């Protein structure tokens, strides 16, 4: 079942057409929404939230029509906005409980649920502190908590790892990965940090100028045809390259001790061939793997055509 679907959606801000005749199915699980600045990602997010009524075409989220059932949609989804946002004067628990009450939860349920969600988001010990005193990492986590409090079945995360230090980003990515797999919550992540998307999402949608450029599971998008292999040596050694050419392989690119080779036969004896060449040329082989396109390559290719 798809989480959201758009049919020939067109959205305009005054004269400017931001989304142009977009037809799209957002699958379940964790989906990455990618695109350069001005590609219409934020506008798409706002349309799916029922903030904007589309100029033409139809959109539905969780089976609810975008143009008319905005309230019902926002009852079942959670938004983690990109900017820092909090309610002035409230500490973490009362802020998250307040968010719950705004979704219709009775006060007692909201308070119980707030503690539970704060615990899950790793803010257990700082729950009684004012949100203004929170660090960048904790502010990102409280935004996730206020989006989760009413048990949404679809989560929109706008730049969830923005401004976090490495440890904070690892924890946030682990949270997103955990929530989007096996917990009955679908997640749409909009981010500029492609490796982060690679680590958490299973599928991606690439937008540019309001038009869809690519969509599909990351694994399939990254496959390369033929058999190219990335090799890492202990230190750069030209002898190794000559040995490779002698065996019918081709050096595609080399930078320092890392290089990418292409071999004609791909019948699985690649490993043995590489070890043999290494022994023959005396270079120390530190690693090799089947070359895969990174998500960045996929992204660049998708938006360039």
């Amino acid at each position, binding site marked *: 079942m798809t989480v959201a679907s758009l049919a020939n959606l067109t959205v305009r801000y005054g004269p400017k057409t931001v989304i142009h005749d977009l037809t799209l199915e957002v699958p379940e699980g964790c989906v990455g929404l990618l695109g350069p600045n001005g590609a219409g990602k934020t506008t798409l997010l706002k349309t799916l939230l029922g903030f904007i009524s589309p100029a033409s075409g139809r959109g539905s989220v969780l089976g609810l029509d975008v143009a008319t059932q905005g309230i019902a949609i926002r009852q079942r989804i959670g938004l983690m906005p990109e900017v820092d946002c909090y309610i002035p004067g409230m500490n973490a628990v009362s802020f998250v409980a307040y968010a719950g009450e705004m979704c219709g*939860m009775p006060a007692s349920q909201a308070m119980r649920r707030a503690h539970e969600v704060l615990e899950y988001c790793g803010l257990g010990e700082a729950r009684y502190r004012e949100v203004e005193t929170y660090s960048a990492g904790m502010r990102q986590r409280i935004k996730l908590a206020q989006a989760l409090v009413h048990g949404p079945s679809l989560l929109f995360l706008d730049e969830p790892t923005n401004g976090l230090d490495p440890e904070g980003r690892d924890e946030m990515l682990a949270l997103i990965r955990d929530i989007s797999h096996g917990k009955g919550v679908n997640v749409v992540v909009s981010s500029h940090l492609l490796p982060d998307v690679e680590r958490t999402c299973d599928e991606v949608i690439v937008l540019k100028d309001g038009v869809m450029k690519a969509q599909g599971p990351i694994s399939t998008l990254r496959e390369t045809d033929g058999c190219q292999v990335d090799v890492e040596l202990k230190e750069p050694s030209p002898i190794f390259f000559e040995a490779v050419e002698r065996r019918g392989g081709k050096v595609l690119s080399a930078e320092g001790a890392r290089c990418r080779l292409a071999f004609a036969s791909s019948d699985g004896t690649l490993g043995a061939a590489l070890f043999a060449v290494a022994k023959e040329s005396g270079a120390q082989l530190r690693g090799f793997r089947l070359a895969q396109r990174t998500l960045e390559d996929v992204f660049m290719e998708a938006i360039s055509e």
Partner: protein
Amino acid sequence: MSDTPSQSAHSPIADLSYRTYDGPLRTHYVRWWVIARASLRLAMKKRGYWPLVALASFPYLMVGIMLYISKRTGMAGMLTAMGGDLYQNAFFAAYSWSLFSVFLLALLTGNAAIAGDTRANALQVYLSKPITKLDYLVGKWAGLFITVASASLIPATVLYLFVLGLYYQDGFLGEHPALILQAIAVSVLPGVLHTSVLLGFSAVAKTPRVAAALYAAFYFALGPISQITAGILGQAGHTQQAALASRMSMSGILSEVAMHVLDAKPMPGRFGGQHGLSQLPEPPLLPIVLTLAGLVLAGLAIARARVRAVEVVRG
């Protein structure tokens, strides 16, 4: 929908990871009250709140004492110097003395109503929830209104009960059946005016400090401006417009309307005694009520226009 992994209900180790919420949900109609109660609670937590409430109810205490003395000594004293009924004048005097502290209370609690949310981007949280812009505005208005109105409503009702107790045997209820209604109507008036206008300023300003500055400037500027225009008009001979102009400040409007609602007479030297303007006739009530309504509607309209669910993408 992929279902959660099935654990046997009574496995010894509970799975404390994330679980969804499927408890009861309340109807949509009560959402504005959630916002109102929250802003009420926030207002009460502010440092200056309780001292200002005390300051606002102090005049009612004083009037209570004056009534007690007049009961014991039979002398109505200053309260009925300009004629009119003792009790109505008493309520009017307490009301007009507490006007300024009610304004300060509104300023302290109301400046961050919307401006605080704008600075903290809280609108993103509010409007991503299943509430409409109307819920947000009604909630904010109700929260501020209750805070401000209660500061004059509660002391007024206490004073009424005291007066009732004091004069019950003298047939007080028979003579003044409607006094309690008039007192309530009058003490609700500043709540409505301050809340609406302040909400407008709070929506316009980007930070609570600016909102407070704007509203204070508006409040204090209106006074001298109304006096100067009244002075100029008076010199030019149009006494009728001069009288009207002299009332055109926030406190002027509130006092004038309250005087007519209570049909009480002001204490001597209190309002009419402005130097040079005392001989002006009583201004007509209608234009003043219209101005009051105009200010209220303007404040609400500005607030509604400024609170936008979607920031328009510029250029």
